[in-house]
């Protein structure tokens, strides 16, 4: 029997006849489909005018094709090819089952030329029949069929392909030997020549503090120039042709964060991007039934998909992202946190920047900042720190061609490069920072785009310490991973990149650990007089130590102050004077981090979101329908 392939107008006519669609929806969808160069069905589904299942059912009824319910009747596992998963997802089809001598392919759009060409290429000798299904059915079936494989890949792909780049092993044998030798020399020195050893150590630390300060200053200076702020102009964004925009995957990994889900959905709806080209994946843990149920209850448009990540160790965000990456359809991919509020033009700016950048620009980092900056001391300091980090230091790193440790969210990637590179390291608790360095090592470049994602600053002390200890632990992991072969790293990054990596990733961690010792020394000098410490700080060292203590620290305060200037947040500037108190918290977190690195290197300290009053107000406003574009 010759099968009749579905025609879109017939499907629409069926839906109108069934009173499932309004004329106004169709007119709007027709315009959008023309603008976006998608099917009207995709436009209708993206706008929430119709569900995937209703569309598929109408399509099947209008043509007499069978409706394939892949949840009730999963595909024959023998027909599925694990290497063709991306094809299945991008083309929206999969071989379903064999009936008699015919292979039935279930497809979202059996009429599409791409689907027919793919089927002809892959099953040239077979008689092919078609069935209609939905995107969710395909996703569910693929998850069901390749659950174990995808989970394994998410955990072990990087380790299997390049074990030296994985933090699964925290410290290598050669690193252990180096640490042992270093500590032994220090101990022997302290026993044999305590004064000389202490002087040498203080001189060494003082010297590197000075270099570290100089590097920070240089980065802030370079990042403070107005030129670095204009990477994509409004005109460039306006010049983008909607029909040429590619499918964009948005990953939103979440764990027990059902309360902030509406913020995310609201933010995605506000995005200035063709909805039919958005592939939004809510990446949820299988055991997190509360968030899964909350996500279902939102009844969001068809662009939102739920990816259930199997429960396995390590239970980390990068593992969840790796798992979801197996189901991504977009040419580009971005990661957002659940409470993120990206500026609406961010995806378009990223596309514009990708398009005008050479192919080796594989990642674009958007700026991060906080929407609840005025809540308390912590949120203010956090905002100043992030402003310095994302508005000055990262652009500075970009200009100086130093590897950029990516920030927690809003990293946009070329999906293919991300896949080829092994994606995120699931064993690294600052997987983004690690990935930034890995990209640079592989010859790729990270750019910074002038679009901001606003997040919730952690304003609860205990939670802040937990979050910060994870970040510091992750930086330790990242440094240890990439310093397994220092010479290789040097060859790949060059002089500036190598030392930039040391001073941006390695040394700040060390300073957080060493600071309490130096503060104690200063305190001793103040309480007992300069003579008490003068022996370990002989004249040449004391001058530099004094410089660091007074000018270095004060300049750090100054750089924190300047951080608020770019965004005109002048009220925050005086708070920079309290930065030293904030550094004490850093040191507390650093000691927790080093302890955890030893006893639980892959443990993910979960940050609790939704605690801010601003978040609560935003949620209330969204629920009341009054939260606008701001």
């Amino acid at each position, binding site marked *: 029997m010759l099968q009749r392939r579905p025609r879109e107008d017939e499907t629409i006519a069926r839906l109108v006849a069934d009173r499932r669609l309004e004329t106004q929806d169709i007119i709007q969808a027709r315009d959008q489909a023309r603008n976006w160069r998608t099917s009207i069905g995709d436009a209708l589904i993206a706008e929430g005018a119709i569900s995937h299942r209703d569309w598929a059912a109408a399509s099947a009824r209008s043509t007499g094709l069978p409706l394939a319910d892949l949840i009730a009747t999963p595909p024959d596992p023998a027909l599925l090819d694990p290497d063709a998963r991306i094809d299945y997802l991008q083309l929206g089809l999969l071989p379903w089952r064999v009936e008699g001598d015919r292979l039935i392919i279930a497809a979202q759009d059996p009429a599409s030329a791409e689907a027919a060409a793919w089927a002809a290429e892959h099953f040239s000798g077979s008689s092919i029949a078609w069935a209609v299904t939905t995107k969710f059915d395909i996703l569910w079936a693929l998850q069901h069929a390749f659950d174990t494989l995808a989970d394994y890949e998410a955990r072990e792909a990087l380790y299997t392909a390049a074990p030296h780049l994985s933090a699964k092993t925290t410290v290598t044998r050669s690193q252990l030997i180096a640490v042992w030798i270093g500590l032994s020399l220090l101990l022997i020195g302290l026993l044999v020549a305590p004064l000389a050893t202490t002087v040498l150590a203080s001189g060494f630390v003082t010297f590197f503090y000075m270099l570290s300060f100089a590097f920070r200053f240089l980065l*802030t*200076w370079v990042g*403070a*120039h*107005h030129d670095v*702020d204009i990477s994509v102009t409004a005109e460039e964004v306006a010049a983008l042709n909607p029909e040429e925009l590619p499918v964009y995957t948005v990953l939103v990994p979440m764990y027990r964060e059902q309360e902030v889900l509406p913020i995310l959905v609201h933010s995605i709806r506000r995005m200035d991007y063709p909805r039919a080209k958005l592939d939004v994946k809510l990446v949820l843990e299988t055991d997190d039934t509360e968030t899964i149920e909350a996500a279902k209850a939102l009844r969001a448009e068809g662009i939102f998909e739920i990816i259930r990540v199997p429960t396995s160790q390590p239970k980390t965000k990068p593992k969840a992202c790796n798992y979801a990456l197996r189901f991504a359809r977009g040419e580009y991919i971005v990661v957002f946190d659940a409470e993120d509020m990206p500026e609406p033009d961010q995806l378009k700016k990223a596309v514009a920047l990708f398009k005008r950048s050479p192919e080796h620009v594989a990642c674009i980092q958007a700026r991060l900042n906080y929407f609840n900056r005025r809540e308390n001391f912590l949120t203010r300091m956090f905002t100043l720190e992030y402003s310095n980090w994302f508005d*000055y230091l990262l652009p500075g790193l970009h200009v100086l061609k130093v590897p950029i440790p990516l920030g927690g969210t809003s990293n946009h990637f070329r999906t293919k490069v991300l896949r080829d590179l092994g994606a995120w390291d699931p064993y690294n608790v600052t997987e983004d920072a690690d990935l930034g360095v890995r990209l640079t090592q592989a010859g790729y470049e990270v750019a910074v785009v002038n679009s901001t994602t606003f997040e919730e600053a952690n304003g609860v002390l205990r939670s802040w310490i937990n979050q910060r200890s994870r970040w510091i632990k992750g930086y330790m992991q990242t440094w240890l991973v990439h310093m397994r072969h220092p010479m290789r790293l040097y060859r790949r990054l060059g002089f500036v990149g190598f030392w930039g990596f040391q001073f941006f990733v390695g040394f700040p961690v060390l300073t957080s650990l060493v600071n309490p010792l130096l503060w104690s020394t200063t305190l001793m*000098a103040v309480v007992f007089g*300069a003579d008490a410490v003068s022996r370990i700080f002989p004249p040449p060292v*004391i001058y530099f130590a*004094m*410089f660091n*203590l*007074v*000018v270095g620290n*004060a*300049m750090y305060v*100054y750089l924190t*102050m*300047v951080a*608020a*200037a*770019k965004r*005109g947040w*002048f*009220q925050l*500037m*005086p708070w920079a004077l309290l930065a030293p108190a904030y550094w004490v918290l850093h040191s507390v977190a650093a000691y927790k981090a080093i302890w955890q690195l030893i006893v639980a290197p892959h443990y993910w300290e979960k940050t609790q979101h939704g605690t801010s009053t601003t978040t609560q107000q935003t949620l209330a406003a969204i629920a009341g329908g009054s939260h606008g574009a701001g």
Partner: protein
Amino acid sequence: MSGATLAALPASLARPRIRRLAGLLVGYVAFLWFALVADRILGSGQLDGVLADIWRVNEDPAALAGQWVSATLLAFIRRVPDSGPQTLMLATTLGAGGAIGALFLRFRRAGWSVAEALAAVGLLAVHPAVLVLATTGQTLLLAVLLVGIVILCLDRAATVGDAQSLMALGLGLAALMLTAPDALYIVLPIAAILPFCLRGVQDAGSAAALYLITLFPAVIAVGGILLGAATMGEAPAYAFQRWLAPMHGSLELAGSEWLNLRGGRFLQPLREMAPLFYLAMPPALLALLALLFRPEERRRPVAALLALAGGPLSGASATLFWHTTGPLPSIAVGMAAVLAWTTSRAWTRPERLLWLVWLAVGVGLSWGTGWLWGQEDLAAWRSALPI
């Protein structure tokens, strides 16, 4: 880089490199010229005493008098093998040569032709005020260069207003304070007009915040020295007095006819210094014309105002507080302001020619009349030259 490689480069890339090379060449020629003059001065023995005093400054910490940057430079110079008081002269001639080279580049960047830029720096190199700064081994040269840089930063903060310009201004002011504490006479007027010239100022809060950004480095610098001194066992009050030392004027008063006649007054020295300055540096008057006839200059008037009046006002203030031995420092400060302003504006060809003619007149008047040479040390300096 070979000529062939250079030719293969796009013009936009090649030009800055050639320009930088030209700047180096001009700076080198200027250094040779200053060195020739310095050699003549040294040969006359007129400045031996002054140079020896400066050379000894590190031996007496009290004599540092807050000139920390100069003292640090001096400490480095003293470490050069076989160095002596004459090495100071070498340092200032080198510094002045470098400044002339940099100035040539700024003129070129501002759209001046090669001939015009060469004429401008050539006239400046033979200006007596510049020659004195370059060949007397004094730290005034450093302070004057910093004044020029501060004014450039201020102008950029007023026009571009990005965070880097604010930082540059803050650091420039701090460096100026550490180089010469009496730079307060130029720093304070700048601080007073700061809220009116920064781009980001919208209200009192933003003005206060931008004040904080621009003045905090100076506070760090001065506070750092006091705290550092305290940690090393010196009472902060004593360190502060040291910083203030050159500002009480007693030393200057002892040997200065200028202070004896005008010290403690403001209007009288201003009335005398202003004409002196305009005669020595007539292009300063172009700032007045620009303020009168160019609306865009009135929108960002701070650099033009400083070019027009910064020098005389700072000199008169310094005289009011018993601290300046004569008009030369204020003329030098005013010249730096004029040059900073000139090279940050676009000029038409007739305006550039007018600027050059007026500067030539200023050079002629400065050499040809006795206005500049009233002070004993300057007269001695001049007597060593054949003109």
